[in-house]
C-alpha cells in the first residue's frame, strides 16, 4: 500500500506527516510529494491545507497539472482521498475567503465565514469540540459519538446536499465537520492533532 501526502506549499504539514508515520509505522509506504505520477499511482491520497481557501487553491494551481492529477485520482479512478481542514473545504465549488475563488467542485457547496452572531462567538473556532456523527462513515469505525476533536478555522463548508455530511459540531450553529462522498473523505477538524482518537481516524483511513 502506498499513501501520498500532497505537498503543495499549503503551509505547515509536519504534523500531518508525523501522525501518519506514527500510525503507519513501517506497514505503509508514505510519500510526501507534489509529483503527479506518484500521486496518481498511489493507493490513497491525503490533501492537507492551511491558511486561506484562496491561498491553498492558488498553491494547487501553481503546480502544473496537479489539479488534473487529483481529479484523475479521486474522480476518474475513484481512489480514497482524505482532505483535512482547508483540504476538505477545497472540495467545494466556491470559497469566499479573501475573494470569491473556484474550488475543486468535487462536492457541491460553498465555503463561507462562520456566523459569529455579532461577536458572541470568537473566531477562529479554536480548540476541542465534540463531533456529532450523523452518518456512518468508514473513517469513524470505533470512534464514539461526541468524541472531542481539535479545530482551528474561521470558515465552514456548506454542502448543497446534506447526504454527504457525516458529522457536525456545535459552534454558533451546526457546522459541518466531516463529509463522505463515495471515495472522498474530509474532516474540518485536525485528526493529526486530536490525540489518540484522531490517530484512530487516521488508522481507519489507512485501513480502508
Amino acid at each position, binding site marked *: 500500500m502506498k499513501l501520498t501526502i500532497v505537498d503543495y506549499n499549503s*503551509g*505547515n504539514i*509536519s*504534523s500531518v506527516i*508525523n*501522525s501518519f*508515520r*506514527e500510525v503507519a509505522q513501517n506497514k505503509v509506504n508514505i510519500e510526501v510529494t507534489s509529483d503527479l505520477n506518484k500521486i496518481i499511482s498511489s493507493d490513497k491520497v491525503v490533501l492537507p491545507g*492551511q*491558511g*486561506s481557501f484562496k*491561498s491553498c487553491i492558488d498553491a494547487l494551481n501553481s503546480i502544473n497539472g496537479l489539479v488534473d492529477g487529483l481529479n484523475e485520482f479521486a474522480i476518474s479512478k475513484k481512489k480514497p482521498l482524505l482532505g483535512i481542514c482547508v483540504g476538505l473545504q477545497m472540495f467545494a465549488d466556491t470559497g469566499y475567503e479573501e475573494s470569491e475563488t473556484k474550488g475543486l467542485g468535487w462536492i457541491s457547496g460553498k465555503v463561507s465565514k462562520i456566523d*459569529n452572531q455579532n*461577536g458572541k462567538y*470568537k*473566531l*477562529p*473556532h*479554536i*480548540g*476541542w*469540540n*465534540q463531533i456529532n456523527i450523523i452518518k456512518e462513515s468508514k473513517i469513524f469505525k470505533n470512534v464514539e459519538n461526541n468524541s*472531542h476533536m*481539535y*479545530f*482551528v*478555522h*474561521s470558515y465552514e463548508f456548506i454542502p448543497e446536499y446534506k447526504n454527504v455530511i457525516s458529522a457536525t459540531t*456545535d*459552534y454558533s450553529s451546526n457546522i459541518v465537520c466531516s463529509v463522505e462522498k463515495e471515495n472522498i473523505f474530509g474532516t474540518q477538524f485536525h485528526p*493529526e*492533532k*486530536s*490525540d*489518540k482518537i*484522531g*490517530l484512530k481516524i487516521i488508522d481507519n483511513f489507512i485501513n480502508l
Partner: protein
Amino acid sequence: MLKNRIIPCLDVKNGRVVKGINFVDLKDAGDPVEQAKIYSDGGADEICFLDITASNENRDTIYEVVKKTSKKCFVPLTVGGGVRSIEDINKLLNCGADKVSINTAAVKNAAVVLESSKKFGSQCIVVAIDAKKSGDKWEVFTHGGRNNSGIDALEFAKKMEDSGAGELLVTSMDRDGTQVGYDINLMSEISSIVNIPVIASGGVGNLDHLVDGIKLGKVSAVLAASIFHYGKYTIKEAKEYLKSKNVQVRL
C-alpha cells in the same frame, strides 16, 4: 460545545527543561520531550514551550526539541521565545510546531504579525502580550519583561487582532510567579475588546485560579507552569476540578 483549554507551559533553556515535573516514573527530569509526552498523555489540550535560551549560539537546540516532541505528541504544540522573523517562524513550523508565539518582535514591528499570518495562516500566529499595571491602564513590556514599551495593552491587543493574530497569550507581569491568581481585570478587558481567543497566563497558584480565569476573566484557555511542575497537580486533577465547578473541559 467548544471546551476551555488547559495548557501546561514548559520553560526550555539550551534544550533542557528549567523547572521540571518531579514524577517518580520520569527517567530524565530535564527532558522536554518526555515531559511534554506526560502532559499530553495526561490530557493536556495543548503544550507550550517557552525557549528562554539566552545566547543565539544555543538557539538551534529548540528546533531539535520541537522535532522530537512533534513525533511523540499529537496535540497542538506552541513554541515561543526569541521568535524574531518570518524565517524563525518558518523553521519552527517545519520542525513540527503548530503555533508560534511572538512577543518582542510584534511590539517592535507589527508587520511581522501581518506578514506571517498571511504567509502561514492566522491559526498558527499567537501574539504574547506581557502587560504590567500602570495607574489605571496596563502597559506592554518586551524582552522577557525587562523593557517598558509604554504602549497601552488594550490598544495593542486590538492592533494585533487587526494584524492577523489568531490568538493572544496575555501574561500579567504583576502576577507572574506570585501564585495569587490571574489578573482577572486585565484578562476580561482584553477578552471583551477582541474577537479572537485569549489565553490567560501569570499567577496561577491553585485550581480555583483556573476556574476564575475562565469564569471571571472570560478567557478561552488557561496556561499554567508551576502548578503542574513537581507534580503538585496533574492535568487530569485540574480538569476534573474545573468540571466540578461547571467549567466545560475535555475529559
